[in-house]
């Protein structure tokens, strides 16, 4: 079923929307969540929350791409759940991927705080400067918390090349943010 039809079901408040969403995008959602949480029970719970959030958000929202829309919800819920569950015992990949980015970008010297819209524009402007290939690898690692091995499988790149691209992209991001005054 096309996205527009699924969204129509949501607008008509038909519960069939949920089952079709599950059927069509369930694997994608589970894949994203399990990549972050690494736990089946938590994954199932988060998956259900994703459907619930989508149900509550559509309408009024009318997403352009259900796939991306659901992926964003799933990812954000998974990270929220992950932080709740694993204050100390972290999923190594999720922690590692975020830590390596934070290591490069977080500065305690910075005293300014930035509004959500400003950050949104900054990150998307930066992503726009990247080649499609590098953008995909960057987001697979830091948005979706994929392991290096998983990215290697998806991209077909070697480990060293994948790590090299990530390293350079991190530095680019840092430079980008510095030039725009986001970092001290």
């Amino acid at each position, binding site marked *: 079923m096309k996205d527009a039809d699924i969204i129509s079901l949501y607008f008509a408040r038909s519960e069939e929307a949920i089952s079709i969403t599950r059927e069509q995008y369930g*694997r*994608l959602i*589970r*894949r994203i969540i*399990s*990549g972050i949480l690494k736990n089946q029970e938590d994954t199932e719970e988060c998956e259900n929350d994703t459907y619930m959030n989508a149900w509550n958000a559509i309408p009024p929202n009318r*997403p*352009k*791409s259900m*796939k*991306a829309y659901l*992926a*964003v919800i799933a*990812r*954000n819920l998974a*990270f929220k759940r992950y932080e709740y569950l694993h*204050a*100390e015992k972290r999923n190594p990949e999720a922690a590692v991927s*975020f*830590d390596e*980015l*934070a290591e490069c*970008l*977080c*500065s*305690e*010297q*910075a*005293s300014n*705080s*930035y509004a*959500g819209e400003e*950050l*949104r524009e*900054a*990150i*998307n402007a930066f*992503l726009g400067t990247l080649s*499609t290939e590098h*953008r*995909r690898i960057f*987001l*697979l690692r830091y948005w979706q918390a994929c*392991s290096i*091995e*998983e990215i*290697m*499988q*998806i*991209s*077909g*790149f*070697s*480990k*060293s*090349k994948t790590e*090299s691209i990530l390293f*350079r992209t991190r530095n680019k991001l840092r430079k980008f*943010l510095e030039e725009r005054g986001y*970092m001290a």
Partner: protein
Amino acid sequence: MKREELKNMLSQVDEQYIAEILDAEDMTSEAAPVPARPKRFAVWTAAAAVLCICTVGGGCLWWTQVHRQELPQQSAESGGEATAMQADTIREERNGYVLRWELEGRNSTPDYQRNFNGPIEQFGICELPVTVENTELSLSLYHDENGDPVEASAVLRNQEQQMVFNLSSKGKLYPLYCEGDLTEDAACDQPVIHIYDNTTQRDETEYEYELYYLHEGTAMTMRTYGFSAEEAEALAAAFLQDGTTPAKLSETATNRNEEDRTEYILVWDEGEQLYLNIDPEYLTYPASYERYTTKLIPVGGDDFTDIYGSVGFDENGIPYEVLAEYKKDGKRLTIKVNDREHPMKSPSGSLYCKELAEEHGKPTIVAMKTGTNSYQLCFTQDNTSVLLSADGYTAEEAEAITVELMQQHRTAAQIYDDEKMIDYSQYFTLEQPVPVSADFTLETNGGVHELDETSPFFDLSPFGPTDFAGRFYLRENGSTANIRLEYRSDDGRSVTVTAGGTGKMYAHGQLAEDGGTERNSGRIYGSRTEDGGTALSFRVCDWDCEIIGDGMTEEEMILFYDRLSAYLWENFGDTVFLHAEDCFSRDVSEITTQRIDLVWNGLHQYPITDPGIFTGLGLQSAEVHCTGDGTPQHALLYYSTGQTSIDIFMSSYGEMGPVFPISGASDGFRRNGIMMYGFSDAQNPDHRELCFVTANNIGVHLICYGVDAEEILALADRLIESGNSPAQLLDGN
């Protein structure tokens, strides 16, 4: 930018970009399996990297001819002709653009591997054409079933540059996937070096090249990072001078290594008991630990993914022990360095490393095989004992690592000093002074327990014994709620530590949600007090802690933090301040179907009188079930006060609470060193169950109605403390 902002930023990526990565992935599978890692990590990892990069690399290709050496006609024996034929075939298949080149022979895997590490000169390559500072070369040689060296892998690296060099003789090549037309090169009468530019962005230093070379049946691949194209080419030429082959490298390295081997003696202890005895004193528990997640001891040549380390301090704060553990892909290295003079010996007690060393006038390594691909090696060097456990390594590799440790010749204190170059000021970056006038309020109602010099926290003090004061604040049931510790020195300096699980410990407010600095796997928040002192807030396990220092340096504060956090981790872990309700988070309905009625397993039932486990509760019935030969197996006790009831099942089997397997359950929690599993009934809030196996292997299952979660845990504590088992209950009656 703060960490929290970074998180927010990543949450707001445009959907168009998200769609890109979703399109890039194959979402038809639930989760992509991690590709298996080849066993021979050095060569095959490099080969796999070559394979991947060549397959998908988008870099441009150019080639240059560099040598004057003549390339003789390739013979079928050498593999060259087969190469050309195969190349032709594949070229046709791919229209002459992408060439997939895979030579025969890779199935004849080498029999064993030897590793050498040392200066470049050791390998007969005395002068490199480019400057590579602070560099050592690691060389691995692989031999065929006849013991002939057929493959070599070398890694040259410093912090910014790296070169991986693979060499294969006898016509053997790692599977190479190359771009470009190689058939013309094969027909060329000169050796050719192909350079593939994998550089994705031309920064000042970040060049990445891959070179490939075939000459007289010897194939070479080389990958460089951080070198320019000219440097990479010159490096390749230098390594190929005089027609370098694995055999020639082996000859040079082995000769050199023979010289090295005269510097120590390797003794294999083939005792039946496969462990190494260490003097008991050696295992003396350090007064405190600092934990590390960095590679304290750089050995092994592997890029380990799972690293754990700690430094042990004695009661005077002097580092004397380093423990480092590295894991990756089934391999594990554990290294213990101890500066105290406790020489290690074999099970028979006869092979003291130190004695042997004195006898022979040389350092001695005692080695022992502890399993398939598992070895333990140890040596004593200037009163520093080193014990190495290597799992997933060959004997040669384990020996090479041990020799590397010996060559490092560092004491535990030196290792600690090397790691200690920390800018402590980074932990104290909050600009606003924190008022210290407000005192904290401890929310307890169970009284106060004063600490004395025998308290376990005493050892944390950097001051004298008489300058310590501390107290526990207790809950009604007597368990610890909070602690407050005060240390004062004669010169007026002081440190006050508060720690508790209530989350309301702070004079200075709650723990910040963002900011702080990561240390010891947690975050700490440093601030300066308005009267010039320093304060650190942090959370360890479920403890919310704060240290306020008056007259203390930042370094001292961090040291104090390390000791306190290490102490809390070591002694309390996740056992204290676990909220009781959280222990009963799983729904009991999940387990009811798994119940097995064990009551009737016993052939005999013996009623018993009140064993006195729970005073104040009315024992309604109690009996012990025995097997036919009279062996007590289970005990059933039932307490009730009308409104509340407790069923206790005890099993001598130990592997279970008597009604369902404990070992298969997840999401348990640890309490006083025992794993427990708590369940509650979503339909009936009064119904809770708790299962655990005691240290004496007694399985216990409590089924409670109308009893608070906290009270159930306290009852369990008392039950464990009583040490009762079905047998004891029967004997007692």
